[in-house]
């Protein structure tokens, strides 16, 4: 799965978040797809694997916790980064129990998310060597 250009999926029901994140990660050399609905993101994951998933938690329909669980079931090696506007200690702990790479509360600056995605990419690349 780990190729030169890593594939990143962003899922957030707020379009402004996807709009901010996509160019900032593309600038770092990632191939980025964005989704505002979890079922559409799930369909994309079922079709092809993503190296890194950045997902919100609180969404209509399938929430982020379930989405990351399903995605991890299909591709356990995918690194998942959770971003949430409604952080609690319980959601943070539950996310890590489900094997997420990192947990980031909103608001965050682009530099912060770039660094975390880059760290996830480094982990994937070093595992592929």
């Amino acid at each position, binding site marked *: 799965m780990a190729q030169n250009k890593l594939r990143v999926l962003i899922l957030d029901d707020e379009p402004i978040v996807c709009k901010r994140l996509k160019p900032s990660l593309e600038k770092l050399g990632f191939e980025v797809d964005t989704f505002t609905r979890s079922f559409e993101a799930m369909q994309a994951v079922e079709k092809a694997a993503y190296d890194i998933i950045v997902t919100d938690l609180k969404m209509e329909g399938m929430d982020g916790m379930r989405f990351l669980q399903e995605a991890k079931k299909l591709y356990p090696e995918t690194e998942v980064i959770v971003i949430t506007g*409604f952080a609690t200690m319980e959601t943070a702990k539950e996310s890590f129990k489900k094997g997420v790479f990192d947990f980031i509360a909103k608001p965050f600056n682009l530099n912060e998310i770039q660094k975390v995605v880059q760290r996830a990419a480094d982990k994937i690349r070093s595992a592929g060597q």
Partner: protein
Amino acid sequence: MRILFAGDEQPYSAYALKEAARLAMNTWADVNLLGIQPGGGSAAPAPALNLALTSYRETFLNSWEGEGSPYAKTNWQYEWFPVTEGVLEERLVCRGSKKDFKVHLRLGNPAAGILAEAREEGCDLIVLGCSRGGACQWAGSPGVPQKVAADADCSVLLVKEEQPITRILACLDQTHVSQSSLEILNQMVTIHEAQLEVIGLNPEGGLKKEVYTRLIEVGDYYQARGIKVNTNIAEIADFESMLSGEAQQDLLALWMGKKSLLQRFFPRDWVGRFVAKSQASVLVMR
């Protein structure tokens, strides 16, 4: 999210630290703990400040019961540090396992030091305590909280006293509402399980249409996210009496923008004026 907690030796800083720790505990934020040594020149904090910073560090790191702290020190690594001008030393340091926790000391002007730390470290929220009453002091200097609240690039939480937050009064007096400000309010409501009331402020005898429209949009934003929100309209003239009376048990949140009605009515340092006047803790949102 990165939180900057700025602490001096006064009791209000201990209250503010508790609030910062609570926020960090829920958001797993990166945290900077900052002390300011006024004046400058010395390479180490004065004994009282050193004692306070040590106590804040230990209180913060011990806030987590049992295992699972994101700040648990497990990552040993060599890093370069400047020792004198032009000389660096390689030292073995231990970093947090998941999230970053740093203690910094800055020398010089307190307000300038806090603002510089927030800017250079890319902080999303500054938390600091301050004394109640008109003087609104920090580290013995009047005006520090007001200056930080007025000039920071990010949101600022001023903690005036240890008290449970059951209601957040968010005041909207202009149309600029950033995504970050909506998100920081989300987090505060979630963490405190507080009621949210958004108040649209209007000049006496008039209703500013743009503010009213924005008020409805903000209300819809929170309702769509399952947050129960009450929206109200109040006249600016009543706002000051609300600050010193009704809002005592609440967190007062103010949206900052360039086209503030409050700024037009109270042009001289209106943020500082309200920060000092409010009996409750204040969140200035950007």
